[in-house]
């Protein structure tokens, strides 16, 4: 078998929705070479070849694959987490076994925009993050040049839902 195991290494409640969990896992094989093939197979995946990472959804769940790890948010519970792991493992192994018949795709089909990120920021231009405006901060977030933690407002109770949404968008970009 190409990929033998995915070990869950971290599991925690989602920040905004305590009814859901997020988790991370380690892959027993480096699957970097397979990601462009999976990008072809999954029609709505977001592939970031610089990292590389591939993000896709399964209903409401957001799944990001890196070359040797996985991050998932909005899973229902532990059972759901392991069901996702099994599904992803099958996806990777099936894609690998069939890769001679698949044209790899290195493009990013769609990606979140700076405006989308900006919409969830406090929009008060406080400059505490080191940028002159929230829009500038959004652009840097999108390029992976700033860490979300630099915006301290987002980590207050008031902005919990916005933080969760930004984290989802960043996960789609492979940054989280």
């Amino acid at each position, binding site marked *: 078998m190409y990929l033998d195991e995915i070990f869950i290494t971290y599991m925690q409640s989602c920040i905004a929705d305590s009814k859901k969990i997020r988790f991370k896992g380690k892959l027993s094989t480096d699957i970097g070479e397979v990601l462009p093939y999976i990008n072809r197979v999954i029609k709505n995946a977001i592939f970031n070849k610089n990292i590389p990472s591939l993000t896709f959804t399964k209903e409401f769940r957001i799944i990001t694959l890196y070359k040797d790890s996985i991050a998932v948010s909005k899973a229902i519970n*532990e*059972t759901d987490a*392991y069901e996702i792991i099994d599904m992803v493992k099958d996806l990777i192994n099936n894609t690998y076994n069939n890769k001679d018949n698949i044209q790899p795709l290195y493009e990013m089909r769609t990606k979140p925009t700076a405006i989308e990120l900006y919409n969830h920021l406090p929009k008060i231009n406080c400059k505490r993050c080191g940028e002159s405006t929230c829009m500038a901060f959004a652009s840097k977030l999108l390029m992976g040049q700033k860490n979300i933690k630099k915006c301290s407002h987002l980590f207050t109770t008031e902005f919990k839902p916005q933080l969760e949404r930004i984290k989802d968008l960043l996960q789609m970009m492979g940054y989280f």
Partner: protein
Amino acid sequence: MGVYLDNAATSYPKPPEVVNGIVNYMNNIGTTSGRGAYRKALEADRLVYKTRKLIAKLFKQEKTSNVIFATNATEAINTIIKGIVKKGDHVITSSLEHNAVWRCLKTVEKEKKITISTVPCTKEGYTDPKDVEKYIRKNTSLIIFNHASNVIGTIQPIRKIGEIAKKYDIPFVVDAAQTAGIYPIDINKDNIDILTFTGHKSLFGPTGTGGFILNWNGNLTPLKEGGTGGDSSYEYQPDYLPNKFEAGTLNICGIAGLKEGLEYILNTGINNIFEKEKKLIAYTLNRLMEIDKLTIYGPKDPEKIVGVVSFNIEGLSAEEVAYRLDSDYGIMVRSGLHCAPTAHSIIGTKNTGTVRISIGYFNTKKDIDLLVNALKEIIKLN
């Protein structure tokens, strides 16, 4: 170690892998599932998930999260009956139920003023599925049947009964305590809405394991509420599976053993287990029929029963036979009513009980020979 012929109570011995699985969990994992963010807790989660998945695979259920653990089949049955049946409802059941079903129904009858119809069967325990249809009423909210009797072993026509239940959109629950692990069950093809199982009989797990598989979208209220590990700030029981029905810490030690039992069954092949047991049942019936003064109850047909055979010996009480088999020959069998008084009413032994032998996967022809020789000697000395 003697000859163990009480596998319908619990299977013994267990495959060595089961014992090793439990020891490995206790020594090397030892944590609870769903309640920790550290590696060992995640290992416990993984173990529980894998066990769920094996159960789903064995009974052909697609959704792993629909496999619910309970402490035993009785708890699972209580959850289902009390979670479905409402005040004034009507329930249909077989004439051969174990007290796990029967006492639960009788209690609900008293508390919720429900009515119960028991579908008649022959002395051999055969139920005509068409009879089930005759008992359906407008307020029938549940049909619950055991898959095989724990007294005479008769296998019930569950697929056909399930078909009737489907036609009337009534949930059909099967108590597979005596069949899970030795008889091939396909939850969809067999038209089962909810299957209850015990882990410690033919699934080779330790006692304290069991549960049910939900294959039904109706409303089922949990029997208990409590901690589920996640979403702790929410004040009510979560509505997602399996957590909805699994309040409190799971018996992970038991589940670790059950996992190995399930793997043993899947590796051996359930059809191979079924065929092996059937051959030994046929041999047992033939050898018991050699004995004068011995009356066998039930079908006396290896195609119609699981490895449970009840009998009595003329001039000897069931208790005396069981006692002498144990004390003089080291042969372990059960006597009495076996927690199923209605089944004994059917075969006419409610006042006397029976001697029950129950064959497991690890029994051999030699065990049966020792039993038959012992019985012959007991009769001779009487």
